[in-house]
């Protein structure tokens, strides 16, 4: 019960419910630590972590970096745009060169689904997936579920609507796995073109009516439209998307109950969510960011505890 059943964090799909609860309990303690005057503990003094980002990221990279530093690990940051990847080096070569410098753990974001799993099979270090294409983004799902647990006390039996670009979203897939493992019910809401073909395998509700989704749920997780992954147009225009799926205060006011609003970021204000809602009293968007550091500390701590010297 006290250690994770996996050597790497590739996806939520590989985790057991008990793993997720262990991560949450550990994160509770770290949340306490990061609110102390001295926000740092010496646990991982002898661990070196490489943050390897082949795709752009601000929040996730900073959050991982801060989590590692709060645990006293050494961190090196690597972004593909300023590296030899541009000169034609393969993924394995790049990572093995970094590992030759004695790195214990790799946090990687990559545009190809399966990149993290591939890496975990081929290198000796521990791997944490910080997003692999449209596949999974496990730490985001953990922090989302953790934020729901913090707000409501428990995740079980909560109704969560995920609204937006489900087809291209790794956040959506990881969230669905995580919420279901914790006993929550999930509904996805998007234009039909942005719904993956195999949705029925995931055992989630579906609607293309935003108001229906909002009246059903306790929590709405608003996702960004990932224009950078859309090689063809999936809907006529962003304006039309906003008209049908954009969340505004007026829509919230019409609902018979209060619902909690989440967003994994980055927010496109005025597209999927209005500024008024994003900054409103029902929004826990910034709590998600704070919890992100605690969750990542917990994941790093629990995986690092398996490293043998």
């Amino acid at each position, binding site marked *: 019960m*006290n250690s994770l059943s996996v050597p790497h964090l590739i996806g939520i799909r590989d985790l057991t419910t008990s793993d997720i609860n262990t991560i949450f309990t550990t994160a509770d303690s770290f949340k*306490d630590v990061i609110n*102390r005057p001295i926000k740092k503990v010496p646990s991982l003094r002898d661990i070196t972590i490489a943050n390897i980002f082949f795709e752009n990221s601000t929040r996730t990279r900073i959050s991982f970096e801060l989590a590692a530093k709060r645990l006293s690990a050494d961190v090196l940051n690597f972004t593909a745009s300023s590296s030899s990847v541009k000169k034609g080096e393969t993924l394995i070569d790049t990572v093995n060169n970094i590992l030759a410098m004695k790195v214990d753990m790799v946090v990687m974001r990559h545009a190809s689904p399966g990149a993290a799993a591939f890496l975990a099979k081929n290198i000796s270090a521990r791997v944490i997936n910080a997003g692999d294409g449209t596949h999974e983004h496990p730490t985001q799902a953990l922090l989302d579920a953790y934020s729901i647990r913090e707000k409501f006390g428990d995740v079980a039996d909560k109704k969560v609507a995920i609204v937006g670009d489900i087809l291209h979203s790794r956040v959506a897939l990881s969230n669905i796995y995580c919420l279901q493992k914790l006993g929550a019910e999930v509904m996805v809401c998007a234009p039909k073109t942005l719904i993956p073909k195999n949705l029925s395998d995931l055992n989630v509700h579906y609607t293309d009516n935003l108001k229906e989704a909002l009246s059903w749920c306790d929590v709405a997780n608003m996702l960004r439209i990932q224009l950078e992954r859309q090689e063809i147009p999936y809907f006529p225009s962003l304006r039309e998307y906003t008209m049908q799926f954009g969340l505004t205060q007026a829509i919230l006011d019409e609902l018979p109950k209060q619902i909690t609003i989440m967003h994994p970021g980055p927010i496109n204000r005025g597209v999927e969510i209005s500024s008024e809602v994003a900054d409103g009293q029902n929004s826990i968007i910034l709590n998600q960011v704070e919890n992100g550091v605690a969750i990542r500390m917990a994941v790093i701590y629990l995986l690092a505890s398996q490293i043998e010297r």
Partner: protein
Amino acid sequence: MEKQVILDSKQFDLTLTRLCHELIEQHSDFSSAVLIGLQPRGIHVVSRLRDKLERLLGNAPVCGTLDITFYRDDFRRREKPIIPNVTNINFSIEGKSVIMVDDVLFTGRTIRSGMDALLAFGRPKNVQLLVLVDRRFSRDLPIQADYIGKSVDTLLQEKVKVSWLEVDGEDKIELFMMDQYE
């Protein structure tokens, strides 16, 4: 070797009372002193001392609990990661006399971690150490207690167990050989 009772419940109570008087001697009304119990077993010592001091002084001293999990030096030398306990220090220790409290002082490593953990909450005026049992001549680090319930000379293979009425059904301190210990 049979298990051996070092303190029975009557002596146990007397010892705690004496420790309270020693604390009062040094810190009078506890206006600038706080008690901090180390998780997991030091918190029982603190809660007893707190009750007794409240009876002796008329008001209870400020007490907290401190978890040292993330400050340990044996991380990854154990089979499983250690899941932390609750830390509860909702007061400032800045400029205070802090009395760290634990049940048994053995190698001194827990206390070293405890000092690290404590200093993350601020800069106390000074730190003292109170232990119920001091296992002499077994220190790995140069650490000594300021208040000692009972000093015992033990072998490395022995284990000291402190039982509490509220969790174990009886107040007593026993000495076991390691293989007799559950």
